[in-house]
């Protein structure tokens, strides 16, 4: 390439670098460079909500793997896994036709043949895998009731979680979930997740009651009432418009079960607050 032909690329490059660095400096200064990576915008999207449901199946089987790696030797006749003492842990695996070739192949590749119990380290690793998937499911759809509550359980329950976090962070997660869920003005289900998150905050307040005032608890109870009423309003609106028919029977029943459960939790919480405000701190948080 002769020097004259080099001129054009050089001019282009110099101008380009100048513009690029000017733009980059301006954009970086404005804080526009900070962003939350979200490939194809999947997280918190209508597709993320579906993927989050699909991830739950994977979490189930991962958890089954953790359970089956338990130390005590008791091999389940149904799935060949070692469930230790807990017979209830196993639900027979649904292989549609166990005698067919595919059924036998599935049994062959899924049964546990290792007689050695898993080590504590291995079980910890498996639990961490489950926790990471729960976090992913939560990120994909924070308004999903099961995803939020399972993740909350992992964060608060030291026997299952692998990264114990302080109560403030768990409460922070619950607040984020409530804010996110209350933005939804059509689907009644996120309001239930918000109600559940508020109930979780209340539960943590009762456990650490020395750090919170009765007024703060009452404030959360009001929030719980608000989320439940929003759920009821949106449900009746969906019933009127016929949109409720869009969701399957199983999901409708699931929603009603969750609604009645959270309502019971709300009533219990109201009584606990009543007692706490009456007889101060002598009441054990177990009444909740």
């Amino acid at each position, binding site marked *: 390439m002769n020097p004259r032909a080099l001129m054009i690329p050089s001019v282009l490059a110099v101008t380009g*670098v100048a*513009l690029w660095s000017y733009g980059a400096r301006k*954009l970086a200064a404005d804080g526009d460079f900070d962003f939350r990576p*979200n490939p194809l915008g999947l997280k918190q999207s209508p*597709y993320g909500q579906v993927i989050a449901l699909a991830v739950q199946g994977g979490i189930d089987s991962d958890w089954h793997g953790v359970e089956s790696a338990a130390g005590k030797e008791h091999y389940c006749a149904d799935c060949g896994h070692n469930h230790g003492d807990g017979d209830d842990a196993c639900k027979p695996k649904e292989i549609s036709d166990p005698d067919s070739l595919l059924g036998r192949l599935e049994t062959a590749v899924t049964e546990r043949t290792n007689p050695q119990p898993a080590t504590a380290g291995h079980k910890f690793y498996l639990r961490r895998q489950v926790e990471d998937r729960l976090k992913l499911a939560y990120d994909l759809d924070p308004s999903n009731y099961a995803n939020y509550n399972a993740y909350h359980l992992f964060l608060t329950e030291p026997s299952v979680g692998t990264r114990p976090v302080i109560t403030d962070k768990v409460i922070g997660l619950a607040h984020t979930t409530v804010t996110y869920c209350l933005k939804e003005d059509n689907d009644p289900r996120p309001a239930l997740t918000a109600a559940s998150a508020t109930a979780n905050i209340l539960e943590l307040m009762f456990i650490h009651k020395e750090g919170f005032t009765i007024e703060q608890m009452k404030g959360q109870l009001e929030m719980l009432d608000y989320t439940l009423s929003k759920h009821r309003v949106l449900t009746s609106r969906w019933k009127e418009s016929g949109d409720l028919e869009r969701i399957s029977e199983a999901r409708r029943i699931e929603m009603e079960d969750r609604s009645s459960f959270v309502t019971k939790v709300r009533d219990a919480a109201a009584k606990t607050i009543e007692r706490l405000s009456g007889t101060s701190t002598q009441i054990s948080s177990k009444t909740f």
Partner: protein
Amino acid sequence: MRLFRLTAATLFRRKTWVVCAFVVGVLPFIFTQISSGTENAALWKPALAQATWAMALLCSIFWGFFTAAKQGESNAKSGLGEYFLTTGVSAGRQLFEMWAAIFSFLVPLPLISAAICVLAASPSQAAERTMWLATNFQYAVLFLVVMAPLVALACAVASRLGSITGFLTSSGLAIYGLYGVGYLKLLGKTGDSALAKWLWTSSPHYHFADPTERLRYKLGAIAWDKFPLLLAYFGGILLVYAALSRLLFRARATA
């Protein structure tokens, strides 16, 4: 413009553009059936908007850059580039003509996406609809400014180092700029290291040209006083890549 016509005719006859047209124009409607838009009617439009823009991005990255790399390599290896050199078409001119032909197949993609968003997924409120129109227009422009130099780069790198390298260079840069830089920030805690901070600041931040989230949350159009800054930023990257492509491109296999 004989090489332009030859490349455009070749791409047209190869018919793979039909797949892209289908993926961007029809598939998003099918995708909404596997979104939660089936349960919550309010989510159907956001799901459609998200899918069509995501498909336009994927088609450009996978089909557009692959096609550019393939053309760049075959031009150098088949002797076509050498033939055009003997007829007086310089290497720079050849790169430009091939780029123009390939790019003309990519230009409709964001336009289809914008059209689907405007015609089928427009918000119901009139004020929001005007913003929606502007947002889609802005992203169609940004999309093209981002993709244009990457097509040339894929073509140029492939002419020297082979089509796989050309394809991976452009698609890698695009994916890194769209998502990787965000993870780099999360991984590196860039406040601690000047080098990491410099690397992060000087990376091409293509995520500015990704409309999927902005459209879904109906954040409105990018402020018009900030839009020229974005154009200058991506224009700068365009010029640098154009210069780099010109230097890397060769019209015949032996230099």
